[in-house]
């Protein structure tokens, strides 16, 4: 075990982990926005909108995330979409996790008792108003855990963009192994850093969950 090596690489690896955090946050924001839209489509009265939402989820859940990243980064230029590795990675990861998050959001909405919508409608609220004031606030609480699971999967999934040379944690690890031939030390440090990030994220999720639980 080369302790000195670990001490030397840590600053660089923390820097790389920060890139992973940024990548995760960006994909998360994009993912949530797209997921809200897709969940809305999936819950629509209109069959054609429901179909679009379902198709989105099927495509993005039904194909490997790695392939989606390749398709955007390598295939994109062919159809006029030329992106930097970081941008391509963030977008591909965001679009991918959106499919899973859309299902978490939809599940939350569907878990709210039907009587809530009926009671709101019976008071004279329109459908959108009932969603906004009555159903969604209750659904939000039910979504936090499943969305948290999605977010954790996303953080770990960012490792995939190492394959398109985004200089994040896993890519950095591979590069250092090439020059030092100490895969054990380097992957161990890398794993610890991922665990710290995921642990931090679960703390945030727990806190959100508790905050919502206290409200009612």
């Amino acid at each position: 075990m080369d302790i000195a090596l670990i001490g030397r690489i840590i600053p660089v690896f923390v820097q790389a982990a920060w890139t992973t955090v940024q990548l995760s946050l960006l994909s998360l924001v994009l993912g949530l926005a797209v997921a809200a839209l897709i969940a809305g489509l999936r819950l629509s009265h209109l069959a054609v909108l429901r179909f679009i939402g379902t198709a989105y989820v099927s495509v993005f859940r039904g194909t490997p995330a790695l392939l989606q990243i390749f398709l955007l980064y390598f295939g994109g230029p062919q159809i006029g979409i030329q992106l930097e590795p970081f941008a391509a990675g963030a977008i591909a990861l965001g679009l991918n996790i959106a499919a899973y998050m859309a299902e978490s959001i939809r599940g939350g909405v569907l878990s709210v008792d039907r009587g809530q919508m009926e009671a709101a409608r019976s008071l004279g609220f329109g459908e959108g108003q009932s969603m906004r004031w009555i159903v969604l606030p209750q659904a939000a609480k039910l979504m936090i855990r499943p969305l948290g699971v999605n977010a954790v999967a996303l953080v770990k999934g960012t490792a995939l963009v190492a394959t398109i040379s985004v200089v994040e944690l896993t890519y950095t690890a591979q590069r250092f192994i090439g020059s030092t031939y100490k895969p054990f030390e380097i992957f161990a440090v890398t794993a610890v850093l991922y665990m710290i990030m995921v642990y931090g994220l679960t703390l945030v999720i727990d806190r959100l969950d508790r905050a919502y639980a206290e409200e009612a």
Partner: protein
Amino acid sequence: MTDVRPMIEVRGARKFFGPLEVLKGIDFSVARGQIVAVIGPSGSGKSTLLRSINHLETLDGGEVWLDGVKVNQTLPRRAFEKHINSVRQQMGMVFQHFNLFPHLSVAENIAIAPMKLKGMAKVDARALALKMLDKVGLADKIDAFPARLSGGQKQRVAIARALAMQPKVMLFDEATSALDPELVDEVNLVMKQLAAEHMTMVIVTHEMRFAAEVADRVIFMADGAVVEEGKPDDLFRNPVQERTRSFLKKFLNG
């Protein structure tokens, strides 16, 4: 027919659930200030009938009128939404399972519709909530959350919530069926009080004694049709139809 138009009028109401005809052409009307109780065995269609009055169920045939306005009009989607929302503001509905909003306090449960739908200021809406809670004897619970209330208290808040919109009619869908027996009276008392204030009410109920006490008219339904209707005294003491007799007998013996 009197010269006063009825508050609620249902004509030829028909409704199918798949191949099953749950309403087989129902006609009835409720005059202003009148209290009608609808009784009948489970599956007779009485709840479906009540729910179709405020369009929570869509009729497959027939008409529903509220105070001279046709409820189930044929309109483009958006126009109908607007129409039905305004109609529903004039009809209070009380559900078997209360359906209070668990994420809102008692005050907010009552105030949210007047605030969001009538643009009432928050202070005024809270004052209104307090007034409505006073009516149902729960002023001290104004800042409680629904989870902290007993079933009877929940239902009384649900009634207060409906009343806050100052509806022309109140619809009760088995309002006491989900309550523990000892909590039924407090809810019935509130309903009787409303009756004394001449609120127009349609009450779907399993409680014959309460129906007899409070209703001006009782409708007995079975298999999606009105079998018999009349004043409570007549219908309960001297039912004409065999079907009514056997239903009441089962009830009195059970």
